[in-house]
């Protein structure tokens, strides 16, 4: 009954959330995809048991081992109760269906097996057959241990919407018989592309969303980076594009805090206090970018990481190596022709060849009229050209289009200059 003196043990930040994700992956690999809901129930039971016990008795010396032991025992109870050892899903694919409960428990909760389970889950969830929004919701729910309510909060939508997205993903996984496995050979590269796309989408959601809750947004970025790190730390999935995406996210995340002031108002890159940039993340970005420089030609992530890196190493906005930034944008545009990339390129072009030239380029872009960023860039270019009236019109248009209060405020300040 007495407290054992463990009360001083502190829990690592997000331990519960991250372990919930690990345990859900391991249990799903153990039971098969059709029992995903059962795996989630066991995870929740395990976490509640920890809550009940640790609240009063303090945190045990090895919290992870405690959680794994309890989850494993709950899983074994289910297995024994159902006596479905022989029918255990072929998805387990380890070929040890004959094993008894004792050897099974040892096998599934080794670090390697945990990582392997998470990777299988990641590839399954990010299967191209599943919609992007459902993929993100599933990643956050199953792999990252967020609740439906927390995900709804992050995406500024209702719990019902998120529950539907998750339901649709689970149905699709079942209907299409998507396998819980990491593809090999040529398949790996194709599927890895899809996984990286989902991860970057998740990161961008946190980095660029109009959600005013800074913590939730930072959480999304961190979770996306954690998933990418999982790929980067595993030899068979550590490809140049994986390292490049991780580098890109490091360089961008380094500037996360410096992008807003104490009141939540947006500070543009040009005006950011560069001493607030996270040097540790920038260093990590360099390490992954260096590591990514092998294999065939650069991926879009290499080029975007290169651009983000150039911003991170520039002493001031004006002293940024704009001509190199422009060159990377030229390559990116060749690789991924899109009006959005062309719009970003125009900002660099204005620095290298002047705002007039950039204005002509932007005027030739189509399909961006409903995008607030397009009008913000146009307003800025007109302002640089000294054309006050068109600048004001585009800033106002951008203001009407953005849903972010911080962005509206920034644009309002600009129109009043």
């Amino acid at each position, binding site marked *: 009954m007495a*407290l054992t003196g463990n009360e001083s043990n502190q829990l690592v930040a997000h331990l519960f*959330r991250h372990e919930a994700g690990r345990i859900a992956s391991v249990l799903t690999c153990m039971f098969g995809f059709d029992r995903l809901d059962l795996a989630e129930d066991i995870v929740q039971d395990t976490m509640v048991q920890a*809550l009940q*016990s*640790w*609240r009063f*008795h303090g945190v045990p010396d090895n919290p992870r081992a405690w959680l794994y032991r309890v989850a494993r025992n709950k899983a074994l109870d289910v297995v024994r109760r159902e006596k479905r050892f022989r029918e255990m899903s072929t998805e387990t694919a380890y070929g040890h269906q004959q094993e008894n409960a004792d050897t099974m428990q040892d096998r599934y909760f080794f670090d390697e097996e945990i990582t392997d389970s998470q990777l299988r889950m990641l590839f399954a969830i990010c299967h191209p057959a599943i919609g992007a929004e459902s993929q993100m919701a599933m990643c956050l729910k199953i792999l990252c241990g967020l609740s439906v309510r927390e995900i709804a909060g992050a995406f500024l939508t209702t719990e019902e919407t998120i529950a539907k997205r998750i339901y649709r993903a689970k149905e699709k996984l079942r209907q299409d018989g998507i396998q819980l496995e990491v593809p090999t050979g040529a398949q790996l590269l194709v599927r890895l592309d899809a996984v990286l796309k989902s991860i970057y989408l998740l990161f961008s959601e946190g980095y660029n969303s109009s959600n005013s809750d800074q913590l939730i947004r930072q959480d999304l970025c961190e979770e996306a980076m954690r998933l990418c790190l999982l790929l980067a730390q595993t030899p068979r999935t550590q490809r140049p594009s994986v390292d490049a995406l991780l580098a890109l996210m490091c360089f961008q995340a380094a500037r996360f805090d410096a992008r807003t002031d104490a009141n939540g108002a947006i500070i543009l890159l040009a005006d950011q206090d560069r001493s607030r940039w996270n040097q540790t993340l920038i260093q990590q970005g360099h390490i992954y970018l260096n590591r990514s420089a092998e294999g065939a030609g650069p991926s879009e992530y290499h080029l975007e990481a290169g651009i983000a890196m150039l911003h991170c190493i520039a002493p001031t906005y004006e002293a940024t190596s704009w001509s190199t930034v422009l060159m990377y944008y030229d390559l990116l545009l060749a690789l991924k022709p899109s009006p959005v990339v062309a719009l970003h390129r125009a900002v660099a072009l204005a620095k290298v060849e002047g705002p007039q030239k950039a204005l002509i380029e932007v005027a030739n872009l189509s399909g961006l009229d409903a995008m607030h960023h397009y009008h913000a860039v146009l307003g800025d270019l007109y302002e640089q050209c000294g054309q006050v009236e068109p600048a004001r019109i585009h800033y106002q248009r951008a203001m009407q289009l953005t849903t972010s209060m911080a962005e509206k405020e920034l644009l309002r300040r600009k129109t009043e200059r």
Partner: protein
Amino acid sequence: MDKFMLVFHSPYSQETAFMEMSPEAMQAEIQKWNTWIGGIAAQGKLIGTDALAPVGKTMTKGGQVITDGPFTEGKEIVGGYMLLTAASLDEAVELAKGCPMFDSDGTVEVRPIINFE
């Protein structure tokens, strides 16, 4: 030093609410309790503390009638207790003030343990 028992009463809905909590929220809840209990333990005043599961049986009529409960919706149940030492009832009340029960509409009953010596 006298002994006291703190009895934690919580709405039944709170006990079941744990099942709906996110892992992140559970971790925050643990940290709140650990901070409060750790503070009392650091003063050498903690004897012991435990949680009670929100399930069980109620026996009546000489033990002949055994029912599930008495945990009906909307009722308060005893969710846990703590034994501690304090110089006075006032001090025990002071120590109980930081109890995280209060964050979730809970009640804390502070009862002196009768000393027969």
